[in-house]
């Protein structure tokens, strides 16, 4: 009984000592917390170092998305590149899980540390391609999909990509 009482007294003393500790609170709108570059916030579409859009409209992000908030349509440019004719993310559904970023083979879709995207209308939460596309390369500065991929586009034939051997004509007998 006495021990229990002393335990209560010790609790009170411990709490009293907290009069002199600083509050842990981050007073948000005035005081912003530090967010790491890999924080999963608003989604952007990036461009490669040459200034061409990275997205090849492969639809992997839309497949990976657990809430089906990504919609896009593939188109083909004259030079053979694939690109999204439209690219739409419904952020009122997005759960910022980052699965799309993981699925993306060209590092085009990336999540940024910005989370302040409140709107008064639900329809304003639907971002089209022009809202998503940024000018920079995002987190991966040197990566250019068409430079490493074997796909032939205008100005780069098969076998001309980095670390790519020239294709072998299997129907020829010549060495």
């Amino acid at each position, binding site marked *: 009984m006495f021990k229990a009482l002393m335990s*209560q007294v010790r*609790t*009170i003393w*411990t*709490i009293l000592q*907290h009069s002199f500790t600083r*509050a*842990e609170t981050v007073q948000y709108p005035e005081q912003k917390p530090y967010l790491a570059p890999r924080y999963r916030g608003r989604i952007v579409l990036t461009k490669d170092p040459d200034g061409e859009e990275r997205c090849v409209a492969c639809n992997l992000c839309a497949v990976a998305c657990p809430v089906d908030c990504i919609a896009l349509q593939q188109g083909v440019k004259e030079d053979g590149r694939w690109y999204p004719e439209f690219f739409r993310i419904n952020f009122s559904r997005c759960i910022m899980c980052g699965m799309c970023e993981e699925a993306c083979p060209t590092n085009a879709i990336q999540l940024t540390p910005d989370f302040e995207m409140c709107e008064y209308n639900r329809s304003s939460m639907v971002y089209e391609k022009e809202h998503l596309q940024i000018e920079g390369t995002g987190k991966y500065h040197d990566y250019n999909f068409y430079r490493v991929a074997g796909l032939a586009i205008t100005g780069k034939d098969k076998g001309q990509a980095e670390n790519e051997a020239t294709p072998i004509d299997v129907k020829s007998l010549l060495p």
Partner: protein
Amino acid sequence: MTELGTISFGLLIIFAAVGGAAVLTWFERRLLGVWQDRYGPNRLGPFGVLQVAADMLKLLTKHDWVPPFADRLVFVFAPTAIVVAMLLGFAVVPFGPDLYVLDINIGLLFFLGMTSLAVYSVLLGGLASNNKYALLGGLRSAAQMVSYEVFMGLSLMGVVMLTGSFSMRDIVEAQRDVWYCVPQVLGLFTFMIAGIAESHRLPFDLPEAEHELTAGFHTEYGGMKFAMFMLGEYLGLILICCMITTLFFGGWLGPVLPPVVWFCLKVFALICFFVLLRAAIPRPRYDQLMSLGWKIMLPLTLFNLLLTGAIALWMEG
């Protein structure tokens, strides 16, 4: 004091007590914040003090709703009872040598009676709500009050014995040499615990225990009726602190500063201590509460009573 003076002073006390209780809602939250390493409401006005006004506005504009299954008359009456009883309790508190509404020779009994009346509010509120959580809350409060009222009164008898009077003024005057918190330390301890239980504040807030009973006896209440319950609770806190000050800490007595200032300072310090208890101590289980009341506090009080009586006789003889 003249009759008019008494009435106007009484009105002043009512406004001061209600205003104090309102500010206390904000102050308690800030103080709890300090002890829990956060800020509490600090946005509205200087230090967030206008939070009181915002809360009040919100409660005032809420839909004043009585559930169709409730016992309408009792449901509406219950919240007023606690406020009225607690405010009446302030009548016997001496704020200074000449600052009191009522100095009756049974002041202490009057106070005990008024705090007991407040139980009806909780009990009837729980009963009239016609809701199982509310009923459980009311049930608990009834049992808690019965158990803790017993030694609440008895714990004060030591003070009465030493003073030889039930009048609050005489009790304060008798503490000129030494405050009763020294010879009556057991009485202070038991009265404080009974006081917390009586005003059902946090370590003993089993009637409302939001983790078990949603909100206990005031589950069905909203708007101003809910505000009345809260007001009554905070008034009860202030009243208990006033009583502890008067009975154990020498009331208005103190050097240099005017008596009223001393009284208010002591009450303020006690309120801070009660908030500290709320911040620090977890709520006991219901059977623990009961066994603490009957098996420990009551024998302790009786022992204190016996000891005080023996010493008083020995000093005389």
